[in-house]
């Protein structure tokens, strides 16, 4: 084998090895720059349907988690029940409620199911509450939820003896 061929193969191998590493990192790009992707979809969704919006929201600026308009809730507060005073910061994550120990908010309540309800942002950043087939139901104000429903600010969500609200 000539010296030249071997040198080319040596450098070629290093290039291929690094290409593998770089492609691997491309695969997990969404982990590293995930916020940018969500932000783009959020903006597109916003552009599609501004009239449905009860209150005009500012277009998101910066990362997808921040700047969801001035009326967006930033925390979830437990106002009644054994967990009164607990707050959870709303950062775009799904919040699960129930007696199961892996819920975000673990309810110590005989009237709660183990996976009772969840609260999550839809792609416009509105917060939605959904009953997960609980036995005793989830109530928004006085009405029992049957479908995923957007949560108005400071509207009480009642699960058994626990009441939670979303606040700014």
């Amino acid at each position, binding site marked *: *084998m000539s010296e030249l*061929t*071997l*040198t080319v*193969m*040596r*450098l*070629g*191998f*290093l290039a*291929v*090895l*690094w290409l*593998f*590493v770089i*492609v*691997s*990192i491309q*695969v*997990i790009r969404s*982990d590293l720059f995930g916020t940018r992707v969500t932000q783009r*979809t959020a903006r597109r969704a916003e552009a599609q349907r501004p009239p*449905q919006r009860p209150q005009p929201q500012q277009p998101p600026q910066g990362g997808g988690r921040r700047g969801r308009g001035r009326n967006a809730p930033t925390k979830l507060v437990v106002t009644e029940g054994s967990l009164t005073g607990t707050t959870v910061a709303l950062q775009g994550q799904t919040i699960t409620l129930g007696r199961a*120990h*892996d819920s975000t908010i673990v309810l110590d309540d005989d009237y709660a199911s183990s996976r009772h309800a969840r609260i*999550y942002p*839809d*792609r*416009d950043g509105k917060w*939605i509450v*959904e*009953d*997960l*087939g*609980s036995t005793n*139901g989830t109530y928004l104000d006085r009405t*029992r*939820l*049957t*479908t*995923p429903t957007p949560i108005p600010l400071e509207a009480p969500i009642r699960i058994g003896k626990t009441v939670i609200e979303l606040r700014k």
Partner: protein
Amino acid sequence: MSNLTTTGSNTTVSSGGLPSRRNTELAMLVFAVLVPVFAYANVGLAINGELPSGMLGYGCGLVLLAGVGHLVVRRYAPYADPLLLPLATMLNGLGLVLIWRLDQSERLRQRAESAFGAFSPDAPKQLLYSAIGLALFVAILLFLKDHRVLQRYTYISMAVGLVLLVLPMFFPARNGARIWVDLGFINLQPGEFVKIILAVFFAGYLMVKRDALALASRRFMGMYLPRGRDLGPILVIWALSLMILVFETDLGTSLLFFGLFVIMLYVATERTSWIVFGLLLSAGGAAVVATFEPHVQERVQAWLHPFSEEVIQSTGSDQIAQSLWAFGSGGVLGTGWGQGNSDLIGFAANSDFILATVGEELGLTGMMAVLLIYGLIVERGVRISLAARDPFGKLLAVGLSGAFGLQVFVVAGGVMGLIPLTGMTMPFLASGGSSVLANWALIGILLRISDTARRPAPAPAPSPDAEMTQVVRP
């Protein structure tokens, strides 16, 4: 965003779920098989000037391993992480090439013939071990339907882990360390499996106890100091790891065992003070043991003065010096496959010191790539831990990837002269059955946790009450 469906004015997360990314995995796997095959051809061309005759066999073996792995993941863990399998396959493939390349070395052949009377190549054995390792990986994905099952075996795994840790004490030492269990027909290195078993125990234990360990503390100088009685567990583990160091003279297992506990304790409690305590305890313990244990002293001397004539005489090996020369002669771009002299390391050139061959023949550039691949495996593990929904899964994933990362650090650090050499093996690269088996099992468990974590939640059953109230009219 295919996981969002619009129904009327409501946007709901459908049960269709996240993309499974199995095709990405397949593409990466093809890549991960082609790179080692290219390396294989490279070695043959450099040493003999022709394509190696066994290339087809090894290539097919690797394709078969990757293919079976992929199909099983596609069928039984469809939402698992797309990168772990390709990364592990890549390292395993590169390891096979490195071992085969060292099998070609005339020096190592003569050395083995003068020492044992016969030379047997390690590459076919390693291919066999890889196949068994993959079988274990497949078995885990088939039979472990939910990683939370492991939680039931918290205290059983503690017992098994301790037995495995103690077992090598009753077997004769090899090369100064008691890390082997000789069953007559097979030699096992239980330390490799212990890291998985103990990660299960620590995860189960800390999940229950973390509140006590995290909340009851006093604030002192910006750190949360735990109460005296909460120091119990960490002191017990510390004492155990020191006993391993003293009685088995095995620095690696001892470090891995204690480090794993400290990492998991830190993750479970979010208290920096545990890291500080852990570092102080391990440094203190190691310093004390080094004063009276000759084997540890030897290792420390070999680390501090690798080129000193006396140390080489007294330890009877110049492995570290040769390894450092290998890294040095590799330079930035390396000498190229098959053209280095890393076989001068002699004993353990293809197991503990395999990284020196990477450093010499692929240079700093190749070394960085290989370390990045390890780093990516650890990153995926931590990512899986973040995505996992149950605390046990979170702790287990972080424990497994932490142990993996710690092992890579301990081995790479030892070979490069950053820390004293410990006698562990580089996961996937190094020749050795126990290591390959245990690490494929580790990847299998991580994939299972990630599949459970990314699997979309089943659509909630419509509440029968709610529907009936809608039908009834006044």
